[in-house]
């Protein structure tokens, strides 16, 4: 399992992405979005989302050129309406209808099963549709990205993956994650240049397994420490039994929470390094140098910012996350784009028939 050591400097010719935007500018956009959304009783919401996306992409550059976003608010609105009509309304009817009508318990149970089935199918359709839409509306040097995976293939992959993961009590899940990622990456294109993914399920399984182990050890150690502290304290001070139990649970719980956060950061950084490290593009390979401590610090500070400002600080949180992502990501070498041609895929917001609907690009906003 080849893995780049964390934090090392890349070779001299590694290429990075850069983010030039600021939280303040994004907040300004956000304020105007809220104002116009209130004024239009919500309709402007979709145009506001497009403005944010356009800003974030326009402030990101690679090799001195900025990315660009070409979507429109109308497309998001249409996509949302379609999702509502095709999924939202039937699910709402099935979930509440039988009870309202007073149908037999068997019919009610059947309706619930149908709801779960529809939701299970909706997620892969939405994931594929969103990716297809967003890539088709993104460009660099006026060359459009595209996603060419078929929804039916992904639905099959997704449903089988979930069922297998459930049946194996989660053991299959890492393999499912790899297959999902492989599907998404290997059907993504820049112009006529394809992205490739060569990660393997076994490697990712090891990462997940180690992650669970680290977490269990951490949580166990946390409670052991709490027990030790309580024991030592009980030697010195006479405490009632309930206070001792409370101390163990409280201190142990708090330490276990910290251990969980640390284990998550450790796992997530390894996962990201693996997934990026096995993604190839135009003769080069991506390399992620993300490490657990900075990732943990970023996540905790972002959480504190959001909670402390009741969510209003999200423009700064978004900018921090993008800057962080770009800082720890690089392309090893210069991608060979001499032969890259424009090969934009026609992606309409409306489709004809079920296949057309499934493979049309739509985003929920």
């Amino acid at each position, binding site marked *: 399992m080849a893995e780049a050591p964390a934090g090392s400097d890349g070779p001299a010719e590694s290429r990075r992405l850069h983010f030039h935007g600021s939280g303040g500018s994004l907040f300004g956009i956000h304020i105007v979005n809220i104002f116009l959304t209130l004024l239009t009783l919500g309709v402007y919401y979709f145009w506001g989302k497009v403005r944010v996306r356009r800003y974030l992409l326009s402030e990101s550059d690679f090799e001195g050129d900025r990315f660009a976003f070409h979507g429109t608010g109308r497309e998001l609105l249409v996509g949302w309406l379609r999702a509502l009509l095709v999924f939202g309304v039937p699910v709402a009817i099935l979930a509440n209808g039988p009870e*309202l009508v007073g149908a037999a318990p068997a019919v009610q149970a059947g309706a619930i099963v149908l709801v779960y089935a529809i939701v299970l199918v909706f997620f892969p359709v939405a994931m594929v549709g969103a990716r297809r839409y967003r890539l088709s509306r993104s460009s660099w040097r*006026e060359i459009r990205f595209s996603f060419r995976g078929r929804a039916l293939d992904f639905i099959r992959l997704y449903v089988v993956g979930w069922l297998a993961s459930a049946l194996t009590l989660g053991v299959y899940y890492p393999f499912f994650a790899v297959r999902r990622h492989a599907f998404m990456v290997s059907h993504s294109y820049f112009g006529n240049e394809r992205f490739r993914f060569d990660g393997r399920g076994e490697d990712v399984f090891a990462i997940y397994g180690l992650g669970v182990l680290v977490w269990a050890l951490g949580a166990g150690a946390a409670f052991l420490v709490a027990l030790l502290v309580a024991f030592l304290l009980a030697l010195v001070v006479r405490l009632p039994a309930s206070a001792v139990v409370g101390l163990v649970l409280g201190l142990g719980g708090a330490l276990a929470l910290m251990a969980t956060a640390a284990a998550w950061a450790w796992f997530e950084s390894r996962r990201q390094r693996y997934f990026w490290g096995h993604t190839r593009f135009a003769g080069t390979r991506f390399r992620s140098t993300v490490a657990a401590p900075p990732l943990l610090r970023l996540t905790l500070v972002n959480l504190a910012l959001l909670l402390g400002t009741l969510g209003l600080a999200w423009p700064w949180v978004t900018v921090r996350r993008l800057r962080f992502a770009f800082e720890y990501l690089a392309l090893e070498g210069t991608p060979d784009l001499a032969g890259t041609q424009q090969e934009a895929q026609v992606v309409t917001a409306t489709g004809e028939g079920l296949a057309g609907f499934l493979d049309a690009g739509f985003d929920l906003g």
Partner: protein
Amino acid sequence: MRGDVAVPTTWEGHYLDGRSATRQRATIRVMRTGLEATVEGGGTLFWPYREVRQTQGFYAGEQVRLERGGELPEALLVADPAFLVDLRRAAPELGGRFHDPAGRRLRVELTLLAGLAVVAITGALYLWGIPAFAGWVAGRVPVAWEERLGEAVVAELAPPAKRCEDSERARVIGEIAAALTRPMPDFPYRVRVLVVDEPAVNAFALPGGYVVVLRGLIEHTHSAEELAGVLAHELQHVRGRHPTRTLLQHASTALLVAAVTGDVSGALAYGAEGARVLALLRYSRVLEEEADREGTRMLVAAGIDPRGLVGFFESLQKEEGDVPAVLQYLSTHPAPKERIARLRALVARSGAPPAPRLLPDYDWRDLARICPGSSPSPPSGGRRAG
């Protein structure tokens, strides 16, 4: 120097042909009707301003991107924003639609204004707009819909297994409720009072005419007048459609939260709380005062002594420190001191003649036996009604 001789300045930039990913260096001259670009690979372009749109370059440090074409356009890129100033000066009418970097200061000011407007609009909506909207819509919801909603909720809040269905004592409560609604033949709902075997002191109204009374509350009443007062208050919540209004208010506020934070999940969290709110029935003080006022009127119209309600709150307040169950009721029906004072004033103003005792032959302590296994005597520290 710009004077009579209009020498077009040149700018260094890049050209993208929209077909390949390589960018070519270009020298761009700002002319009166368009841009002239000489591309390093050979060739010269002329782009009339009318066919050009600007898609980037609105923020500090952002390269200026001018596009020409349809869905997959060509582009000219210039890093220096002074290029825009030059363009606007060289072609005042045609170039006026391009971004003016000098206007960025105005943009900041307008954004601040928008921010103030947002605060003002949000405040106005929350304090006035949403309650008014909820009241208007609630008045137009069909009674049948409310009844169905009430039935669904009552199954959760008063599960059949916990209901006290002693028919003799339930009839006593029914008589009180009937006495209250008799003077109002156009009361739009079928009143159904349910008693639930829970020790908490609480009672609440649900959409469609259901009133749920907890055993704890019955145990804390000392006379029929006191229970009649509580029932009158709850029935006025029903009549004013307060449960439905509160639900609508919560849903609208959830949407407002989503609009302001730009986050739908925030709305979901708020919406989930709406279900809890109905169970706890945390009405606004406005609705509580309305229920008190109209409830007093209802008691007087039915010939029942309205001082019973005041007496009930007074005895609850006395027990506040002793019996934790009492806190439940007080947390959902806030500010007892002011409330008692206000109720006293309402009663005094009602000018009601002293009313005959309601159910004078009934031993009130007997009602507490409506639930199996409950203690019939009032808890210690309570006042006995004369």
